[in-house]
């Protein structure tokens, strides 16, 4: 048994652990099915990438799981049904997400951002008092995302990549065990992508992480399993190699992904 826990395809802890099970998820906008009967099974310790051409419904799947848009079917997290619950209730059940554009609270400091993320279950008495000291979990998250030195800076002055890391840090202190990340490396430099990938590996070992991504190199480097969506439906699922060899996937990606296409393996 290796001492270092890493994300692997199918999860690294076997059955009976935290899981997210999506069955027949369908999201309709005025008769148009943006997501059409999607099934996903995600186990703890699996670093799952959700890929597909533009308009495939990747972000809508995340929106439906987190309660932002209404969907039909079933989404259950370790046996608890999420569909139909309010956004903040789903968040409290341990499902966290980030957005395509970093949406940290720019006027607040890095530390304040994290403190708010960590405090959804605080009582009014605690809320009405001043923040005193730094919670150990926040200190740890600061180390994980590498922003300890910038803790007292307003989040608005952070670099683009740092903002995305802060978002991930907020998910960590929020105590989310299902993390849904929407294009976390969009607009990042190569170096920042590398660091983000390593960060995802570190945190993905003990959580369920789903990454929506367009960057195929990034996906190839860090995914343990991949789900391919097209026109709202799952067309392939498996390891990176399996998905790349799938003719359906090649057909969907032919021409649409051009330079970063899935089949031009380096």
């Amino acid at each position, binding site marked *: 048994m290796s*001492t*270092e*826990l890493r994300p692997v395809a199918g999860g690294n802890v076997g059955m009976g652990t935290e899981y997210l099970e999506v069955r027949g998820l369908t999201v309709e906008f005025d008769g148009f099915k943006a997501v059409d009967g999607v099934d996903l099974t995600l186990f703890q310790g699996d670093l799952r990438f959700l890929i597909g051409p533009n308009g495939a419904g990747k972000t809508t799947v995340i929106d439906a799981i*987190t309660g932002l848009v209404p969907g039909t079917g079933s989404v259950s997290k370790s046996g608890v049904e999420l569909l139909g619950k*309010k*956004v*903040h209730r789903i*968040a*409290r059940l341990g499902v*966290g*997400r980030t*957005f395509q554009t970093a*949406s*940290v*609270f*720019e*006027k*607040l400091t890095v530390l*304040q*951002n994290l*403190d*708010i*993320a960590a*405090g*959804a*279950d*605080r009582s*009014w008495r*605690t*809320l*009405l*008092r*001043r*923040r005193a000291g730094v919670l150990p979990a926040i200190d*740890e998250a600061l*180390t*994980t995302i*590498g*922003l*300890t*030195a*910038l803790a007292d*800076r307003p989040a608005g002055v952070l670099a683009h990549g740092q903002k995305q890391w802060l978002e991930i840090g*907020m998910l*960590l202190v*929020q105590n989310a065990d299902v993390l849904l990340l929407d294009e976390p490396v969009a607009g990042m430099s190569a170096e920042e992508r590398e660091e983000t990938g*390593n*960060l995802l*590996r*570190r*945190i993905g*070992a*003990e*959580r369920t992480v789903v990454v929506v991504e367009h960057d195929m190199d990034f996906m190839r480097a860090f995914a343990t399993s991949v789900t391919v969506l097209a026109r709202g439906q799952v067309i392939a699922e498996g390891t990176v190699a399996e998905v790349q060899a799938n003719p359906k996937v090649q057909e969907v990606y032919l021409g649409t992904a051009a330079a970063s296409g899935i089949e031009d393996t380096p």
Partner: protein
Amino acid sequence: MRNLLGRWQTWAGFGAAAVLLFGLAPVVLSEFRLGMFAKFLCFAIVAVGIGLAWGRGGMLVLGQGVFFGLGGYMMAMHLKIADAQLRGDAVPDFMQIAGIRVLPGYWAPFASPLFTLLAILIVPTAIAAALGFGVFKRRVKGAYFAILSQALAAALAILLVGQTSLGGSNGLNRFQTFFGFTLNDPANRRMLYFIAAGVLLAVLAIARQLMASRYGELLVAVRDGEERVRFLGYDPANIKVVAYSVAALFAAIAGALFAPIVGFIAPSQIGILPSIAFLIGVAIGGRTTLLGPALGAIGIAWAQTLFSERFPSEWTYAQGLLFIIVVGFFPAGLAGLGALFTRRRRAQRPAAAPDPVPDPEPAPETAGARL
């Protein structure tokens, strides 16, 4: 260390304000001006609440006249009943003229001073909370919330104009006594000023605690990213309701002080125009700061009396222009300008604060693991 310094600064600030309000103002101001200053303090109390709800919470409260009016009318009703009882009459003077012989049922409880004071504290706050839950849970915000709150102020003003048993458009006026003290006595009017000054300091202390607390940080987060806060597991409606209710409470207390200090409360004090006038001072002073709204409200009210005595019509235009300039070009208000200057001065001193060194790479084995 920084904390200790901050605490010392706070006490010094409150001390200076107390000396100014309780020591200096009564000495240098004539009796007439002190009465006017007391009125301005009432506006400042409303402004502190608006600063919290609008500046920190992002709720454009265009209808604070509603709560100001509720507080003012409830206090005025008690004063009128008390005056009538002193004269041995069954109903207040204006009702006798209107031909009302029996005290209307909803007036009766306000004969009790304790009931009146509790009602002033509880009724507007409860109404704001109920309204806030209804509105914020349905995610009504921005301009829609502003229009809604303004419509409410208009509706209450129109409703009151039609109520003969509340003095109609004249409102309630000519109060003789305030909880047993005759209002003709300059010493008692001075006491009212001291009460207003004390309340303003108390309200500032409460607002300060709210702004500095975790709740205050959360309120700013809700203002800047309401949806994001939802995804962190909070219901933003609850956070907003608290700030809105506190602002309503402050406005009600200010209204209750306004009535005896100025000597009347009328629908003209609570409609759309006065509700907007409350905002102007807050915007000019700096809505996101603690002191900006209060100082702005006092400054605007003071300027209004000063200039409108000489140029009654021009002042309205000047006030409108000032509002447009501030909101358009200095959204942070005068307080924001002050902050800008200190930042400039700091920037001129080189190497004041070196950039923090970025973190070294965290150890992959330990970092991020959940313990």
